[in-house]
């Protein structure tokens, strides 16, 4: 009963601020456009590639190339949804209206997650179809083995990134602090840790590295990842769960 109220209220909240439209459309446009650009470049270079590269070419993964940038907009969406309450002071009014803080936080996260899922799926499918269209003869089809899993996984990945950001923002409260932690982490640190051989073994257990495994259909030649596509997504889900539980634990015991 109370949950239904919170969900309806959060829907009003989320649709009545401009930042929702901006961040979500940025996530979609950036991911799709960059994916198309990389696809176009790949198509042009295909003829000059080595046979080995041609064999391991993963057209599905190429069309998702924009996701590394588009996910940043998803992070901003996730952070703003939660931290707006704190930066405006609305949190006091909200918590006075919903004294049960679990209901409030998870109602909010449910609404934002549902919206992120819809946009994430749309982004993923759009990026795939437009990317394959640009790749033309080298493209994959949705019916090919593993492709549908990767495309659906792309939508889930975007959603989980947003959820992870919501959990972090619930812990840190300040939008600037949350973005200041999350942006460099996903844009730089995670990539560096995942590509330097010394730290690779740890780096691939980070949420984005593990989660993005599901986007690959044709694994690389020297792939020694200890988890499969769903295993990787599972690791990411664990990260998200930890962030959300941490956020809730702090909200529950902290003064608003």
């Amino acid at each position, binding site marked *: 009963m109370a949950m239904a109220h919170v969900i309806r209220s959060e829907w009003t909240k989320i649709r009545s601020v401009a930042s929702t439209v901006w961040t979500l459309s940025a996530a979609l446009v950036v991911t799709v456009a960059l994916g198309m650009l990389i696809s176009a470049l790949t198509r042009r270079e295909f003829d000059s590639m080595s046979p080995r590269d041609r064999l391991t070419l993963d057209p599905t993964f190429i069309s998702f190339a924009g996701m590394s940038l588009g996910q940043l907009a998803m992070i901003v969406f996730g952070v703003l949804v939660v931290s707006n309450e704190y930066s405006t002071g609305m949190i006091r*009014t909200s918590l*006075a209206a919903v004294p049960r803080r679990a209901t409030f936080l998870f109602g909010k996260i449910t609404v934002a997650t549902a919206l992120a899922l819809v946009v994430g799926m749309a982004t993923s499918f759009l990026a795939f179809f437009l990317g394959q269209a640009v790749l033309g003869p080298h493209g994959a089809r949705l019916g090919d083995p593993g492709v549908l899993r990767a495309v659906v996984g792309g939508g889930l990945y975007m959603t989980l990134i947003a959820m992870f950001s919501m959990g972090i923002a619930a812990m840190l409260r300040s939008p600037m602090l949350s973005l200041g932690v999350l942006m460099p982490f996903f844009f730089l640190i995670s990539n560096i840790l995942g590509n330097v051989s010394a730290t690779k073994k740890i780096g691939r257990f980070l949420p984005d590295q593990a989660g993005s495994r599901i986007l690959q259909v044709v694994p690389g030649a020297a792939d020694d990842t200890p988890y499969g596509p769903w295993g990787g997504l599972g690791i990411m889900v664990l990260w998200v769960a930890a962030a959300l539980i941490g956020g809730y634990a702090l909200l529950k015991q902290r003064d608003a």
Partner: protein
Amino acid sequence: MIEAVGLTKRYGDKTAVYNLSFQVRPGTVTGFLGPNGSGKSTTMRMILGLDNPTSGQVTIGGFPYRKLPNAPRQVGALLDAKAVHGGRAARNHLLCLAQLSGIPARRVDEVLGVVGLQDVARRRSKGFSLGMGQRLGIAAALLGDPQVLLFDEPVNGLDPEGILWVRNLMKSLAAEGRTVFVSSHLMSEMALTADHLIVIGRGQLLADMSVRDFISANSADFARVRTPDTEPQQREKLSSALTEAGGHVLPEQDGALRVTGLPLPRISDIAHASDVRLWELSPHQASLEEAYMRMTQGAVDYRSTIDQRAGLMQPLPPGYQPPIPVPGQGQPGWYAPPPPQPGGQPFVMPGQPGQVPAGPYGAPAAPAAPGAGGPNPYAQPASEDRAPAGPAAPAQPPASPAPAADLTKPEDAR
């Protein structure tokens, strides 16, 4: 009913609220007074379950807020009017709060009408003035038509018309049998709005009583008696005669006597019997503001120091003529009455014995006063808040039409 028992809140080693116990009853407006930083807002947040008390507890209708069934329909609160998302339209702001507590959208339009914001309902609250924001906050508090209402500084930033509206709103809410708890640091505002007062300072309870009791407990009635300045020995004579008759006599700075414990006619009789002429015999009551200031004196956290004026002021550009001060204006003792000190002169007397008064109310240090337009009973020196407003009061109609600033003066004039 709101009930606090031994409420204590510590932030680290700073104690914001200490051992606070009080009750807020339905059907009256209860004022919650204290200087800035005295713990009013912290207490409000604890009532609403937003902050957890370090010890003690506060309940509404017997339940701690977080256990209260259907809390938002029973309790409405205005904590911080600025706590809205500026990018959200006023109506949407209220709508999402209404939906949180399952209140129909129709009620949103009702409260928008009640606070007079129906014309800007679809505008973003970013562009709202302080007063409009305050009205939006009050609208949010009224949404659930609650039996218990909390307002933290509701009149901040409102114009006089808005202040009057809030005052009447509170009174009518209380008259409907609701519990209304209003915090303020303005004694004068509370004197007009509240029936009951809870005063805190430095997080501790200083007073919990009705406004009427607060006034009489904190400001004993007294009579001011003035004998001719020209004959000081008469003053001594009267002073001892009054003390003998059981009165308590305190000399005031300007030579008048502050007498307590004797009714006015008796003072007059004693003066007559001891053959002393009187220049003044007037009944007084210390103002509410004065009582409040005295009570919270030790509990003010932020006190200003004297500006040492480090000589940073830029020299005026060459050739610039500073404006010639208008005679009398802004100069103490020109024709304005002397500053209202405790025991300020109700009727301004000639400064030195033997000097001819410039007029019936002629100011002592202003021989040119009649030329400057005579004494101005309304020319109050700046420190209005120091209350007893001795000089101006007799010249003013007892029922002053001025709304907020003069609230305390009629007390004195009666």
